[in-house]
């Protein structure tokens, strides 16, 4: 049987186990009999878990193992002795063999594959038989053991609940594992990178040209990994241009919606603004590249500034639009959290609404607003698709918004798509950039959350 069919069979048997154990437990619950400790359903679950879990775990280990065993027996067969030594051709033949044997294709391109497919097929059916028998044995052994324990005094509920608790704990550990996985994978690859390129050059060098040559004696074969232009480009687009767009628009929108707008306007406009955050970034990127970038270039040329078609301004503008809802919703929250008494006090002294907002509400809500802006910055510098599609690839250290700059995320995508050799500094540099990005966004988030939390405590 194929692994999928085995899984279905195991689950089917587990259901049978559930039904029979429940029926048995029900039989104990006859009037006059000793009281059941657990409800019959728990006995059912206990048997079902014992039947299914060991067998499924076994299958999880067996499937990759049997793949390897099948491949070994194919390669060990006499028909494999005349396989070509080239790895690519060899792999192509082996892939064809597998597809032939599994019935995915009818005819083969390589003649060798036909002979190998016979060997493959027999090995596959042999190991599948072993796997099926072992899995079913496990199902019956586990099920029988559990079934034999079903009885009035047996604490099935306690056992099942203990397992549920274990599952809950394991599920919540996945978050830690993910974080650990991110940190470790970034760290390992970065350490390999820094063994080839010094960290000082990476962090403070001002030339970025990761294109390493194929031959060692070629000119410029070493590549230059000074990431300052990248950091500048990221800050320029994400933290300067985008924020110049997003802070005034987001803040004023929040002020209008919380202080002036009628409830019906607020009810419609707020989700509409939040839609800006729901649009996929690839759509923004396409919008930036298709509509905004040419307009920006024409405008730059018309006022006599050398402009590139992939300008920092175009990417920054569109990113600013994307960020508006982040700024406005944080500002909205913190403005509404300012105690009504402060607002009333100011209005009672004769200040107009705008004076109250500017002199009382905004200063009081400032920590929350600043926190929101920091979160927005962290979001903007980690944003990828807009800059990949609109910001260009040349690593310029320029303050001209009409020129092309590149960012950390653009370069990560650039370095990791296309041909990859996993030992070249070119590929590893992407992980070093990722590490820097991870640390910076993490710090921004921690600071922002601190600021917001401290401020919330003051009013709540």
């Amino acid at each position, binding site marked *: 049987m194929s692994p999928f069919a085995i899984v279905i069979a195991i689950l089917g048997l587990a259901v049978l186990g559930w039904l029979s154990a429940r029926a048995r437990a029900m039989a104990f619950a006859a009037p006059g009999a000793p009281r059941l400790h657990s409800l019959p359903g728990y006995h059912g679950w206990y048997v079902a878990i014992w039947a299914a879990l060991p067998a499924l775990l076994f299958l999880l280990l067996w499937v990759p193992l049997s793949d390897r065993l099948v491949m070994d027996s194919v390669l060990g067969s006499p028909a494999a002795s005349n396989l070509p030594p080239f790895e690519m051709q060899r792999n192509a033949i082996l892939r064809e063999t597998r597809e032939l044997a599994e019935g995915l294709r009818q005819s083969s391109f390589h003649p060798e594959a036909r002979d190998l497919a016979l060997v493959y097929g027999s090995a596959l059916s042999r190991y599948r038989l072993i796997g099926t028998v072992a899995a079913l044995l496990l199902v019956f052994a586990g099920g029988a053991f559990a079934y034999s324990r079903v009885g009035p005094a047996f604490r099935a*509920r306690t056992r099942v609940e203990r397992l549920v608790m274990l*599952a*809950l704990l394991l*599920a*919540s550990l*996945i*978050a*830690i594992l*993910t*974080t650990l996985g991110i940190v470790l*994978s970034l760290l390992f690859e970065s350490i390999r990178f820094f063994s080839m390129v010094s960290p000082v050059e990476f962090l403070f060098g001002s030339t970025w040209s990761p294109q390493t040559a194929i031959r060692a004696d070629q000119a410029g074969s070493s590549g230059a990994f000074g990431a300052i232009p990248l950091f500048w480009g990221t800050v320029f687009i994400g933290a300067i241009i985008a924020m110049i767009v997003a802070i*005034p*628009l987001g803040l*004023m*929108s929040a*002020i*209008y919606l919380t202080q*002036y707008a009628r409830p019906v306007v607020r009810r419609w*406009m707020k989700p509409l*603004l939040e839609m*800006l955050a*729901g*649009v*996929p*970034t690839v*759509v923004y*990127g*396409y919008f930036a590249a298709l509509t905004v970038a040419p307009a920006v270039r024409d405008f730059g040329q018309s006022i006599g500034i050398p402009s590139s078609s992939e300008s920092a301004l175009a990417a920054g503008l569109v990113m600013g*639009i994307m960020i508006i809802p982040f700024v*406005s919703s944080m500002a909205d929250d913190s403005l509404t959290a300012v105690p009504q008494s*402060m607002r009333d006090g100011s209005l009672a002294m004769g*200040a*107009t*609404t*705008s*004076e*109250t*907002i*500017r*002199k009382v509400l905004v*200063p*009081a809500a400032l*920590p929350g607003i600043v926190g929101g802006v920091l*979160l927005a910055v*962290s979001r903007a*510098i*980690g944003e*990828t698709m807009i800059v*990949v*599609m609109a910001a260009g690839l040349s690593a310029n250290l320029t303050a001209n918004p009409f020129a092309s700059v590149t960012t950390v995320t653009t370069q*990560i*995508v650039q370095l*990791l798509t296309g041909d990859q050799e*996993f030992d070249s500094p070119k590929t590893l540099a992407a992980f070093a950039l990722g590490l820097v990005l*991870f640390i910076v*966004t*993490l710090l921004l*988030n921690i600071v922002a959350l601190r600021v917001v939390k401290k*401020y919330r405590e*003051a009013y709540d």
Partner: protein
Amino acid sequence: MTDRDKTGRDETGPESAKDTVRPVPVEGPSFAFAEEGEGFDKLSPNGAGAVATNFSKSPTDWDSSEMAKRIRRRYAAERRFRWVGLGAILLSAGFLALLLFTMVSNGARGFTRTEVRLDVDFASAALFLDPATLRSTGAKAALAGSDLQGVVAKAAEAQYGALGARLFSDTAWLKVLDSIEADPSLLTRSGSLWLPASTEIDVAAKGDGDPAAERAYSELGSRDSARTRFNGDFLTSADATDPAAVGIWGAFKGSLLTMLVTIAIAFPVGVLSAVYLEEYAPRNRWTDLIEVSINNLAAVPSIIFGLLGLAVFLNVMHMPRSAPLVGGLTLALMTMPVIVIAGRNAIKSVPPSIRDAALGVGASRIQVVYHHVLPLALPGILTGTIIGMARALGETAPLLMIGMRAFISTPPGGVADPATVLPVQIFLWSDEVSRGFVEKTSAAIIVLLVFLMAMNGVAIYLRNKFERRW
């Protein structure tokens, strides 16, 4: 109630309260009412500016022209501020409208295609096919083996001159194949077929082509041999090199498989972690660590998850490249924190009295959660899940990292086959030079946006329908 709260806070934390109120007194000199103070100064004969001296003055004459001017000025500033606020909102909404308008106006044409009429005399075309054999199985193979492509090219040249074959899409003969398969008797007679036009003609028909193609199109139009129809193939076929023949079904199916993997992992793990953290977790260092990492994961840039997927799933575990399985796993790690956070909020909003009541009648702690708390929190959890899934559906960068950017011309059959997804397909098409791809990209964006809106609509509906205030 609030009064008591306030006094309580003042007693417990006078420092923090003072801190946050401070901006007002610090801003004092430029404070709104300081302007009024200046006004008093101007009115007062001795002009000392000390507040105490004002008490000896006659009361402010609010009807004086000076005061009236000042009030007018302040009201004008008020109106200006209000207009600026309204302008900011309208500008932001305007951007959204412009974005949608650009996509719709570009993309609407992507759903249509130009078709050109071709008269083919199959009887004299020497195809050596017998209609009777076509009724049996293997018709497709027999047809594909015959030289339909050549027949179409010859017929086109006969009908439209030497360059006739260039009027038709490279895949036009497949349409001929389909129509013969549908009606084998076509082989014995001549027929008039509408076939998809080549990209040049298609672009020209939409008013964007080069002069030669425009001329060819207007000539076709005058002979009544061209028409524009809804392009059903766009929704049912996969990627191709020719913009006239591309479709989004391949990418859409890839998205679907990826989302299946994502939800199969992220939803159970997310809900179980939320239950654990909210209901059972002891307050200790481990729990804090879990909470901190979940909150941080929610804020990590998506591309970092792509790096994780590349390093762990591809390079360590050797999973297949470009497969929905890997994409789904990567997106699941990204979506899980969103579900956990939404789930915790939903569970938190179930009032403790429900738990107490269940415990009181003898339920175990697990029963309390699975019989009472989770069903009540489910609408909130589902809303969060749908929003997280919508975000994952629009995500591009992490999938680029794990190689889901290959050119895939057949829809994936399973989660381990090479595939691409809708947003990545949009990205790939946006990189194409050919002009025919502009409208296809926008059309794909429209499809993606429609799905996102539908998902968000369902989330809003769920929230409105099932959300309960306790």
